[in-house]
């Protein structure tokens, strides 16, 4: 049986090749931190990192992930501490019901890397990419939040990015 690596741990896949990465995490591995909001790639609640890039886990078949490293919300913090992004979401109340939140956090994590790598977005002007509220709003628009925490999510990410910069982690 095929095995994939999630947060550095081996997860054995079931023998049904139709199984998505999302269902493997939630149903198979008991990693329910990753949420299912639509199962259609339309809400972002299932966002995880696949070799460091953000993907909608509902649009990825688990079997495609052989040989890749999957990181979920459960794998973000270190040694029981919340990741600075997670802490910033708490401080800025970047959520209400919390259902979209793991996806938002994973998405934000990868988004900061994309900015650090100089990848442009729809709102990027001429010259180097610079993190701004407008960049965050655009780049986080694939993550729906029905509770409407968007403004706080933007603040949380800006705050965490500052913290990450100071810690010299942004380019890691």
């Amino acid at each position, binding site marked *: 049986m095929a095995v994939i690596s999630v947060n550095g741990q081996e997860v054995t896949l*079931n023998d*049904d090749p*139709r*199984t998505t990465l999302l*269902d493997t995490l*939630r*149903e198979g591995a008991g*990693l*329910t*931190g*990753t*949420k*299912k*909001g*639509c*199962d*259609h790639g*339309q*809400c972002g*609640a299932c966002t995880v990192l696949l070799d460091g890039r953000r993907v909608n886990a509902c649009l990825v078949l688990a079997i495609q992930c052989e040989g890749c490293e999957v990181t*979920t*919300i*459960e794998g*973000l*913090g270190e040694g029981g501490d*919340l990741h600075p992004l*997670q*802490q910033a*979401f*708490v*401080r800025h*109340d970047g*959520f*209400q*019901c*919390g*259902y*979209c*939140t*793991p996806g938002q*956090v994973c998405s934000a994590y990868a988004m900061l890397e994309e900015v650090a790598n100089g990848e442009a977005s729809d709102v990027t002007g001429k010259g180097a990419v610079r993190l701004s*509220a407008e960049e*965050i*709003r*655009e780049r*986080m*628009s*694939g*993550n*729906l*939040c*029905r*509770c*409407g*925490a*968007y*403004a*706080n*999510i*933007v603040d949380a990410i800006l705050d965490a990015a500052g913290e990450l910069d100071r810690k010299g982690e942004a380019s890691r």
Partner: protein
Amino acid sequence: MKNPAAIGQPLDRVDGPLKVSGAATYAAEHQLDHAPLVGWIVEATIPAGRIKALDTGAAEKSAGVVAVLTHNNSPSQVPFGEPDDEGRFTQSRAMLGSDRVRYHGFPVALVIADTLANARHAAGLVEVSYDPAEAVTTTGSDADEVPDELDGGLDPDVTRGDFEQAYSESEVQLDVTYTTPNQASAAMEPHATIAEYDGNELWVYTSVQLIGPAVEVLANTLKLDPDKVRVLSPYIGGGFGSKLGLHNEAILACLGAMHLERPVKVVQHRRHVFHNAPHRGNSVQRIRLGASGDGKLKAIGHESYMPRARGYAFAEPTGASARTTYHADALLSRHRVKTVDMSLIDSCRAPGHSIGSLAFESAIDEMAYRCDMDPVAFRLVNMPDREPASGQPFSSHDLAECLREGAAKFGWDQRDPTPRSQERGRQLVGYGVASTIRMNILVKSTTRIRLSDDGSLIAWANMTDIGTGTYTILTQIAADILGLPAGKVSIELGDSAYPASCGSGGSFGAGSSGSALRDACMKLREKLVDIARKQESLKDADFDGASFEGGNLVLGDKKVPLAELVRQSGHDYLEVDGKVEPGEDHEKYSQHSYGAQFAEVTVDRDTGEVRVRRMLGVFSAGRILNRKTARSQLLGGMVWGISYALLEELMLDERCGAFVNRDFAEYHLAVNRDIPEVEIHFREQPDTHSNPLGSKGIGELSISGAGAAVANAIYHATGVRVRDFPITLDKLLEHLS
């Protein structure tokens, strides 16, 4: 030093770390000893009629399938809607109970298999044929049934004075009809349930706002003793009214669990949710306003036409804004409904005020222009001194101050009053305002608290936290009253085994459950003081100035740890019950929260695209229990307002009574980039009549006006008044060139 957990302090959510780390357990995520079987709903494809034939043979033979439940083999239930003297959240919600199809999407089978993929695949193999019946699927101004009552117990019709005469004699008149579309709550967590049954007790892990009625509806539907039904809902991924009652997947999961005596999980697919959970019906709102030349309203008329789902008694009080916001000599408010063969229609965030204000506050804006007055000034000259519909005094009234303060903070005076007079390149710039008002409700609630001999406090209630911050504000209430750090307080919610509370809905959760907790804490204080009085060593202490700080009872210069008082009581812990119920203040006074909201939009002259550039709201909702979570509630409502004004619309296929845009690619919600800088200000004024805390409802406040502020800004930017929501660019474009 002030307790950082004191009431009002912007304490971080106590459940925040769990939520950001993915450790909060939502309905579908409870881990049982054995993995539950998985059910998939097969939906009817006609709006009304009967099932002629069902062939489940292929599905039953499909890999992994354990059972296919239909009306032919599902456990016996009380017929749908019985007993009819019960409310809609407790009467039978029978599923697979007969061959009757109630609406498009109504479950006709539940396929239960070992895995989700197997269940879903087999569901596609179930063959159903139907005998369709005539179905009513559309509603317009032809609605002519008078509902017994509107949501919240309001009368369908209210008249004050002689409307027709006052209107016909008015110097300035406006007669306009607004429409709002069918809308979905679209909570991010789809409705989900795991049911476990051992032949005696039924355990239900679900996502529901009101726990007490959830137990009753299960008992009433499934013919069980309520004492044998346990409902758990500790974390809820948004509700917005669509989870007030238990809905289809919950009943189905229980049927599966009872049929098999094995745990069964049913999670609605996002596409299921649009039909298998309630939505908000479309509205036609005719608004007639009459005023004298100086802008004083003489007549306010509001007539509402909406659908009502067959067999389900919910009618939305769309006229709520028209009844309560402004004074006029005469008032006419009328609600008519039309029974339709559609999926259930129920509350969606701020029933009545949200879509009522969308239309009414737009019409008020029209009237201001018609009277040649500034929209803020027009609103200010028409403030009521009593509640217009009932004639009752207000418990407090702060709308005028919200409008004045908001106008000043927003820079309203920078605005050129002429529509379509402000341009920035291709962008037409507009400012809009709307008044905001939302009724305040207190609901009977109880709780139990226990102070242990280690000085920690625990509180229990079958209350829920749907993202509103209940865990956090209850922590603060207990911490504040008993002088405890937040870390010493734990709040246990979302379990039917706990004392009955109000549940979450109607913005009554914080005030009601919080007041019950306050009552318990105050009684505990008395108890602790009594214990202290009996202590020989404290007999000279200053009991008059007794206070609670830092985990101690403070008597002048003496500090006695609460833990010690518990030990001195001779018990391991002290337990106290608390409660609150509405009293005279709720009969005598008309109670509301208030706000004024301002929006700046730009409209692209060439494409018609609307962007909201900034929003500002000033709100008055009594005492604020937590400035951080309260602000978030208001922010969320403003996002909904923007979304209602510009985006949200369920598209109906009239032929089959189905919504065609049943996903998030086609049912548009506001996304991050749609939301600009938002400024929120509180005018904190405890309301002495609202409840013992002095707080008022906040969760549905800002949605009641935010959308109209955006719509009014669009008019100011373009000179175009769109009366058919949402204001999509196609409706603007033809008027812009």
